[in-house]
C-alpha cells in the first residue's frame, strides 16, 4: 500500500512532502481541541492502535486476507485532525523504524494515506450522517460509506500525482481503470471492517466515537429555580487564542499560494495525459474547446499578460483562491450542526458503570 522511492520524480516528491507537512502542521494545532488536554498520550495510544489494527489480517476467502488502512476508521473514532496526525505518526514509524515505505516517498504516503483517506472518509461520513437517522447507531454505516470512498479516492490521488510526476508514461485512462478497479475492491473490505468496528465501539462506548451525534460531553447545570442550562463540558483552552495558533491556517494558505504561484512556473506545458489520449484517439481534432476556453484563465494562463511564467503563476494563485472559495461555500452548505443533538443517553440497565 506504500508508494516506494523512485515511482515519482524529485519535484513531485518534494512538493507532496511540503503539502503534507503543511496539512499535518495545521492538524497538530487542532488536535488538542479534538481530544482534549491529554493530547500526546491519547493520540500516541490511538496511533499505536492504528498500527496494531493494520497487523490484523482479515480473511477475504479462498485463502487470501487483507488488512486495514485505518484512515476512515480513525477519523470516525477520534475526529479528522487527530486521525491525520495519528496516521502520519504510523507512516513515519513504519518508514523510519521498519524501513517500510521509502524515505523520499514519505511525504507522498502521508498525503495519500494520511490526509486524503482521512479527509475524504470524514467528509463522506459526515455527509452520510446528515442524511441518516440521528442516532448513535447511524455512525457505523456512515463510517463504512466514508471508508468505501476513501480508498479509491487515495488511488485517484496517486493517479493524479503519477500523471504529473510519474517516471514512466502510462496510458492514464488505463492506469485509472486498473487503480480504481483494484482499490474499489479494497475499499469494500475497508468499508466492511470499518463499519463493523465502529458499530462495536458505539455499542460499548458511544462517547468515544466522534462521528456519533452529541458525543461531545455536555454539562447540565440546574439553577435553584429548576431551570437547566447545558454548556460544553470541555472548557475553552486559553492557549487556543495564541496568535501563532490563529496564524497557522493563514501561513498554510500563504505557502499554498506561494507554491501555486511559483511552482506552476515549472509546470509542463506539454499536453496533459487526457489531452494526449484524446489526441492519439483523434478526438482532439474534432473536439471544440470548452465554453470557458475564451475565459480569463483559459489553458492556465491569464489573458492580457504576455510574460508566460507570470501568467501561469497568476493563474495558479487564482485557481487556489477559487478552490478555497468553493470549499468554504461547500463546507458552509454541508455543515452539520452537531450541537443541536441531544447528548447520548447512557444505556439502561448499566448502572454499575454509570
Amino acid at each position: 500500500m506504500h508508494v516506494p522511492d523512485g515511482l515519482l520524480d524529485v519535484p513531485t516528491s518534494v512538493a507532496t512532502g511540503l503539502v503534507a507537512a503543511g496539512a499535518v502542521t495545521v492538524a497538530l494545532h487542532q488536535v488538542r481541541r479534538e481530544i482534549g488536554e491529554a493530547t500526546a498520550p491519547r493520540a500516541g495510544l490511538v496511533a499505536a492502535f492504528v498500527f496494531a489494527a493494520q497487523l490484523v489480517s482479515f480473511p477475504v476467502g479462498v485463502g487470501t486476507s487483507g488488512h486495514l488502512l485505518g484512515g476512515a476508521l480513525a477519523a470516525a473514532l477520534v475526529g479528522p485532525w487527530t486521525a491525520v496526525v495519528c496516521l502520519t505518526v504510523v507512516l513515519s514509524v513504519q518508514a523510519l523504524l521498519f524501513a517500510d515505505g521509502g524515505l523520499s516517498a514519505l511525504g507522498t504516503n502521508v498525503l495519500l494515506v494520511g490526509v486524503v483517506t482521512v479527509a475524504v472518509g470524514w467528509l463522506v461520513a459526515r455527509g452520510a450522517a446528515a442524511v441518516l437517522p440521528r442516532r448513535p447507531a447511524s455512525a457505523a454505516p456512515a463510517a463504512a460509506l466514508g471508508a468505501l470512498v476513501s480508498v479509491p479516492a487515495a488511488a485517484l490521488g496517486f493517479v493524479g500525482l503519477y500523471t504529473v510526476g510519474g517516471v514512466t508514461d502510462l496510458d492514464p485512462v488505463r492506469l485509472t481503470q486498473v487503480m480504481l478497479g483494484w482499490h474499489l475492491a479494497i475499499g469494500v473490505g475497508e468499508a466492511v471492517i470499518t463499519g463493523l468496528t465502529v458499530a462495536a465501539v458505539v455499542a460499548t462506548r458511544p462517547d468515544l466515537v466522534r462521528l456519533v451525534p452529541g458525543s461531545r460531553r455536555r454539562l447540565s447545570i440546574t439553577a435553584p429555580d429548576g431551570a437547566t442550562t447545558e454548556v460544553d463540558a470541555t472548557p475553552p483552552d486559553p492557549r487556543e487564542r495564541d496568535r501563532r495558533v490563529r496564524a497557522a491556517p493563514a501561513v498554510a494558505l500563504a505557502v499554498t499560494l506561494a507554491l501555486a504561484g511559483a511552482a506552476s512556473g515549472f509546470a509542463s506545458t506539454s499536453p496533459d495525459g487526457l489531452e494526449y489520449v484524446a489526441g492519439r484517439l483523434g478526438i482532439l481534432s474534432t473536439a471544440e474547446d470548452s465554453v470557458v476556453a475564451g475565459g480569463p484563465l483559459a489553458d492556465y494562463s491569464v489573458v492580457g499578460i504576455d510574460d508566460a511564467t507570470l501568467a501561469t503563476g497568476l493563474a495558479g494563485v487564482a485557481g487556489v483562491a477559487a478552490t478555497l472559495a468553493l470549499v468554504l461555500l461547500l463546507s458552509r452548505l454541508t455543515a452539520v450542526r452537531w450541537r443541536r443533538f441531544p447528548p447520548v443517553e447512557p444505556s439502561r440497565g448499566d448502572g454499575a458503570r454509570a
Partner: protein
Amino acid sequence: MASVPARRAVARRRRPGVTGGRLSEGLYVPGRSPVHRLPPHVKLVCLLGFVLGVVATPRDQVWAFGLHAAALAGVVALARLRPALVLRRAVVEAPVVVFAVALPFVAAGERVALPLAPGWAVPVTVAGVLGAVNVLAKATLGVVAAVVLAATTRPTEIVAALSRLRVPATFVAILHFMIVYVEVVVADLRRMRIAREARGFRARHAGHVPVLARSAAALFVRAYERGERVHQAMIARGWTGVLPAATTAGPLAGDAPAAGPGAGAAAWARAAVLPLAAVAVAAASLAAGDATAWRPGA
C-alpha cells in the same frame, strides 16, 4: 497437533519486525560501527539526501545505478550489517515487483517484440521495460537505505533526531508515546487472539470478519482508556506537557556513544560523503545523456 498452533504463533509474532525482536526496538541491530556512532539527525538527513540523489538519476543511465549501489554497499559493510538481514527486509517491496512486471505491458509508447522463449515473443514497450528496471532499482536502493537507518539507529535516537530537526514538539511527543506503547497495544491484540483460539476460533472465511472487528473495537477502547490512565499517572508525577526525553536528550548513552557537541561538523563532513556522491552521480548522468532523447537502438 499441538505443534501447529505453536508454529503459527511464532510466525505471526515474528512478522512485524522480521528480526523477531521487540516491536518497540524497530529493526535496530546493536553495534559500535562508525555508522552506528554518527549523530542520528546527521544520518537521517544524509540518507534522505542519498535517496533523493538516486531518485533524480535518469533511468537510462544504468551505470549510475551501479555506482549508487556500490556506495550503498560500502555503507552497509561499514555498518557491519549482515547482508541477509538487509535482503530479507527488502522483501517488503514485493508489491513494487508486481507493478514493475506489469509496466512493460501497460506503458504507453513504441512496442517491440521481446522473445521470452524460442518461437514465443511478447510485445512490450521499450519505455515500460526501462521503467520497470528504473522502478526496481530505485525502490531497492531506497529500501536498503531505509534499512541502514533503521538498523543502526535506536528508535529513541530517531525521536531525538526529529526533535533536533525542529519537527513540532507535539508531533514528536505523540510519536514517542506511540513507540513506547506499541508493544503494549500489540500484546493486547495477541492476548485477544490467544483467547479466541483457546475457545476454538480461527478466522477462516469472510463470515468471521465481525468477530475480528469486535476485537479491533475492544482494542481501540482499551488503547484510548490506557492513554487516559497514562496521562493521569503522568500528571500525578508532575508532568507539564513537555517530554524531557524528546526535547533535550541526544542519543542515549549505550553501545552507540554520541559524538560530542564539538564533533558535529566532523560528523556532518563524514556522513555527507554519501549524499554528495549520489548527487554527483545523478548530475553526471544527467549531463551524460539526455533522458528524453533516448531511442531504441540508439
